[in-house]
């Protein structure tokens, strides 16, 4: 089961104007940098008129659930799970 984190984090984005895709590429958390290699799923959730982009991603050995608040453009690391 993933561990709930709910901490603000820094994220670098990959943006491609041709495919119109914006994907998280690097994650900085607790002084470490994680290089994201797989985007499992990108989905969105509305809370009222506020849109949140949810990225389920992995660096190959750790799963991260990242949420971007489209109003503040801030990122939150919601969940983490590591291969045992």
């Amino acid at each position: 089961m993933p561990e709930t984190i709910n901490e603000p984090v820094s994220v670098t984005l990959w943006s491609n104007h041709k495919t119109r895709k914006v994907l998280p590429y690097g994650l900085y958390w607790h002084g470490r940098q994680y290089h994201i290699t797989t985007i499992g799923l990108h989905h969105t959730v509305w809370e009222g008129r506020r849109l949140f982009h949810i990225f389920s991603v992995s660096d190959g050995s750790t799963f991260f659930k990242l949420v971007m608040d489209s109003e503040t453009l801030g990122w939150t690391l919601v969940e983490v799970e590591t291969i045992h």
Partner: protein
Amino acid sequence: MDFNPIAPTTMHVDINSCFATIEQQANPLLRGVPMAVAAYVKDYGCILAASYEAKKLGVKTGMRVREGKMLAPHLVVLPPDPPKYRIVNRQLLGVLQSYTAHISVESIDEMVMNLANTPALEKLSMVNIAREIKNRIRLEIGEWITVSCGIAPNRYLAKIASGLIKPDGLVTITKDNILDTFAGMQLTDFCGIKEGNSRRLRAAGIMTPLAFYRASAIELKRAFHSVMGYHWWLRLHGYEDGGMYKEFEKDTEEDQKSFGQSYVLGTPRATNDSRLWQILTQLVMKMGRRLRADGFAAYGVGISTGFADHTHWHTQEKKLSPLFTDADFYTAMRTMLTHAPEKPVKLLAVYCYALHRDTSQQASLFPEENRKRDLTRAMDAIQNRFGDFVIHSGRMVNMEQKVLDRISFGGVQGLPDIPFQETVEHESVS
């Protein structure tokens, strides 16, 4: 008349182990691992979907989590995450809509397409369209998501075909292979043939799918004691039984007949327990908002309960004037609930029917009624702006059990329309 001789143009598309597969798509670490999505992750939770790795170990939909873990000790169990499943449903619909406008969304994981007279079928065969769809799903939605496609002259046989090979199946049923297909099946493998209909068929001497297929329409009408027998004959012989064209048409808002919400309680509560009333309040608020958002009020209200002893109770009534506010719905349902048997409630469901197009912009003669309506609209507007339940009844303060977002079986109402999208290339970030 024999089996429908036309070339098949109906395709049933079914996402394999939908919830589990989507969770594995989202989290690559779960791929290849026995896992399941359950209504609740605790031992008593009901498994809603099991991954194919878990299915190989005997884990099935409908089992309790405890039973699943006995079969697969390392079973990973996750709670449902409906927004993920809805987005995949919408993405799948987007892919299928590029082939035909005639699509019926049967449920969160099943869609039926009619490709007759479409440009797609001019360019590609049905089988090649199915292959292309499977490929596009991998590229555009997710590489772990697979679908089983069934192709047949009618919807019913297309559904049967989609269930014959899983996961990632592609089966066509035509007049040439219908006998071979049915030879490998049991009567109860047919959707719609369970205990009752199976008993009727056996009583008429029809013991196997092949005998079912070979029976005449008159024999089947006799077996089912109704015109249903003729409908079964049509289905099995590749003809539509009349429901097809209606269902391929898009639902209009005028087709909406009722709004309802239900909730299964982790801990059963007595009908006079204030914690049950808190659940009732939430259900009423969710139902009321959906009703008002679609521009309706309702004359009819109903409530049903399932008890811990597996018995059920249900009542409904029609009011003289339409109900609009949550407070009115709550009062009506709370009163109805007092007539329920005094037993612990396991399932609580509320609904409203006899819908009436809301004309409440017209002021009521009673100022109090106008104030209630204005207050309800203001509360809806606040929730639309800031999210569900940011403003709520005082009854919901300190709630222990929250009514979670769930996917209903067999229905996908309320999903957003898909904006037209250009096809984009899949891109790797590595």
